[in-house]
């Protein structure tokens, strides 16, 4: 029997190595997939045929050097294939592509591997979930990370799992936090060297947020940095009483990493309860902030708080974009950030110094920013029992959907919404595992009554260079390419391409369902593809071969 097994294995190996094509000649096409080393991740921009992480590269620019599809020929894009996710939902997934294999996450916490050229399945992994999830905003998963031959995925029951990228087999399953206390996980992790850095959701359940790094091989916790200081940190005084214990400050979108500075950058969410700030007086550090953490230890190097003592649910849950740009005559290492609070910021990412801040969307809550970037508040804009109308809306001027930056045009692209909302405050007691929001919102007008646009900003000044109007609005991420293109989608079900320099519309297609994900691009056998999820279908386009 043992001899038979060996014989079968030998034959299988021989078959794989000596596969023949239809003409009978031995194929020279290499097999799909190859392990993804840390070196490959650092240099991901150099292999634009692959999309190796949630934001494409560690600097999160969402810029691809692929230029086969360009401003001249993008009008000839054709549907290549589509993949139907069985769960009816609005997909928020950004797939990865590794040497011809695409990894797509599905609601609620599943992943499939498909041929990136055909959309046909290799394997799937379905995560077992309990029936007592605590999730505020849908059964979402936004994508996986990869290192070596292992995929890493967040799950709604607040676990992190390691999955074999070749077979879909579960390698390890680590509980990150207790889902019964309101913790959950939706965002794609970020690989930093040999660690899996990953955040947590649950800011509407009175959790105490954190950012974690796990050993990629074993799933063991390596470091944890709380996003709310504890009693051993003087910053805890920015929370009245014991409110820090239930202060939220979740970390539910993917961050960025600078290998030269060895700093991890990650945004934090709203303080809790969201709309009743009376029970958590103070600035509520480090909610609504960007944190710069040491890649090896998680120790905080600096933080910048965009919205001190937020009472409108304006999470700083945006993807940080890193670039080195000329600034007042010298090259500066900067971070670009269009915040949910309607202000755009450019920060020095070595020190956290505030360089630029300017509204990029309608806002009525701040007279402006002071010289340190701190907002100067307009009186009477905090929520009341009767309700007060403020811009931006609860959903924000933008939200978690990814912006993009093109080093070719030097422009930062963001989906912006000039909305408003009536904000209410409510008295509420914390109960573990129950929502702890302290208020809510009412719509003032239908969404159609407001203005929405993709806006291109100059990161040196925050000035608007161009805008492309969206009706009624967009909740999609953005991709930009060396073909001088900007790709995005909108809730009216369109996927479209704009000229990255001028904002001129070049191509669009109606996909028939809300686009709530971000586009990505890759290439197989020299053919460039662009992929976007709309509704629960993943669509892939290319030029005619």
């Amino acid at each position, binding site marked *: 029997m043992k001899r038979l097994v060996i014989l079968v294995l030998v034959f299988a190996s021989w078959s794989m190595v000596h596969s023949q094509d239809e003409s009978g000649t031995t194929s020279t096409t290499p097999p799909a997939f190859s392990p993804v080393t840390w070196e490959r991740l650092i240099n991901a921009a150099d292999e634009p045929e692959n999309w190796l992480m949630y934001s494409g590269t560690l600097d999160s620019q969402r810029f691809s050097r692929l230029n086969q599809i360009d401003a001249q020929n993008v009008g000839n894009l054709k549907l290549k294939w589509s993949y139907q996710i069985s769960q009816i939902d609005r997909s928020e997934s950004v797939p990865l592509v590794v040497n011809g294999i695409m990894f797509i996450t599905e609601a609620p916490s599943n992943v499939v591997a498909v041929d990136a050229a055909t959309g046909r399945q290799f394997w799937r992994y379905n995560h077992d979930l309990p029936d007592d999830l605590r999730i505020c905003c*849908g059964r979402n998963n936004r994508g996986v990370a990869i290192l070596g031959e292992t995929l890493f995925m967040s799950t709604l029951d607040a676990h992190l799992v390691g999955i074999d990228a070749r077979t879909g087999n579960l390698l390890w399953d680590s509980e990150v936090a207790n889902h019964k206390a309101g913790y959950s996980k939706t965002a794609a992790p970020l690989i930093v060297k040999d660690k899996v850095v990953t955040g947590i959701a649950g800011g509407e359940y009175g959790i105490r947020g954190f950012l974690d790094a796990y050993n990629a091989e074993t799933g063991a916790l390596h470091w944890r940095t709380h996003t709310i200081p504890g009693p051993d940190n003087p910053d805890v005084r920015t929370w009245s009483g014991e409110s820090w214990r239930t202060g939220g400050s979740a970390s539910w979108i993917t961050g960025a990493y600078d290998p030269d500075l060895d700093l991890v950058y990650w945004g934090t969410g709203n303080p809790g309860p969201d709309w009743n700030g009376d029970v958590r007086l103070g600035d509520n550090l480090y909610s609504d902030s960007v944190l710069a953490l040491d890649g090896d230890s998680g120790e905080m190097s600096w933080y910048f708080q965009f919205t001190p003592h937020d009472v409108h649910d304006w999470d700083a849950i945006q993807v940080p974009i890193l670039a080195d740009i000329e600034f007042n005559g010298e090259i500066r290492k900067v971070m670009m950030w269009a915040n949910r609070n309607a202000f755009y910021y450019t920060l020095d990412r070595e020190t956290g110094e505030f360089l630029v801040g300017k509204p990029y969307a309608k806002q009525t809550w701040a007279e402006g920013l002071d010289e340190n970037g701190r907002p100067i508040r307009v009186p009477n804009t905090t929520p009341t029992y009767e309700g007060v109308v403020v811009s931006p809306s609860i*959903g924000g001027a933008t939200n978690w959907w990814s912006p993009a930056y093109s080093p070719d045009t030097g422009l930062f692209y963001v989906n912006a919404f000039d909305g408003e909302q009536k904000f209410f405050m409510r008295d509420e007691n914390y109960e573990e595992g129950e929502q702890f929001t302290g208020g809510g919102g009412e719509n003032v007008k239908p969404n159609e009554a407001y203005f929405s646009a993709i806006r291109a900003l100059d990161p040196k000044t925050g000035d608007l260079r161009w805008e492309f109007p*969206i009706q009624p609005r967009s909740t999609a991420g953005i991709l930009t390419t060396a073909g001088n293109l900007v790709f995005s989608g909108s809730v009216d079900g369109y996927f479209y391409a704009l000229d990255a320099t001028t904002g001129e519309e070049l191509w669009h297609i109606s996909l028939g369902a809300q686009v709530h994900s971000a586009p990505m691009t890759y290439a197989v056998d020299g053919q460039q593809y662009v992929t976007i999820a709309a509704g629960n279908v993943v669509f892939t386009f290319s030029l005619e071969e």
Partner: protein
Amino acid sequence: MRWNTLFRWAVTLLVGSAATGTWTVIPAAQEIENPFTTRVDIRLGQRVFGQRCSRCHGQDAKGNDETGAPDLTTGRFSNARSPTGLFRVIREGIGGTAMLPISPDTPDATVWQLVSYLESQSADPMDIDLPGTASAGLGVYNGKGNCGSCHMLDGKGGRQGPNLSRVGERRDPSELKAALIDPHVEVAPRWWTMRVTRQDGSVVEGFRMGEDTFTLRVIDRDLNLWSFHKSDIRSFDRNEDSTMPNYAETLTASEVDDLVAYLFSLRKES
């Protein structure tokens, strides 16, 4: 009676389970009377709604475009036909949507209080004392108001305004009155008017049937259906005012009251 089919034995079972903090799965075909319908229950239900439901459905339970959560104040629920159905939806969620089950350790009493609160948000016509009379309102509708020239009712009438068949299920009397005497305050985007100027300078004007980033759909006064690519036209203007006449100027206060009573009576025969 709005909800029917009572099973007293089930109530006993339910109260028992609520008292012990456990929860009940109600068999699909079974209807149960809500045992928690007092004013205090409604207020407690409202508090729970604010805490657990308002994030998606809005503080006023009128829904939210962004989350896709529906308006719960219309008296009609897509996935429930009775209090027991509502109980079931809250308890079990709606598969394939963002509507999740309420946390399993929530007592049945709390779920029933939520049901009571939601029911209280939709007006029961039997409970509302209106100043006008529906029969007189019918006369105003067909006579001085000439409402049928623009509105359709049970398959008859105009197409220049919302279909008023069963409008009493969608609007409460105060909303109906506001629409008659202050029609510009809240106009649904479907009834905004669009003025489209084509490349040759010709103009098409009509109701906004649909608009998105790249296209427009319009129905003009002659009921022609038009579809435009925004890139193919010279310009377009949007008017968010209502085309409805202000009846405060042409009807007496009592005629308005009668018309409101009539419109509010337009609902599906139960």
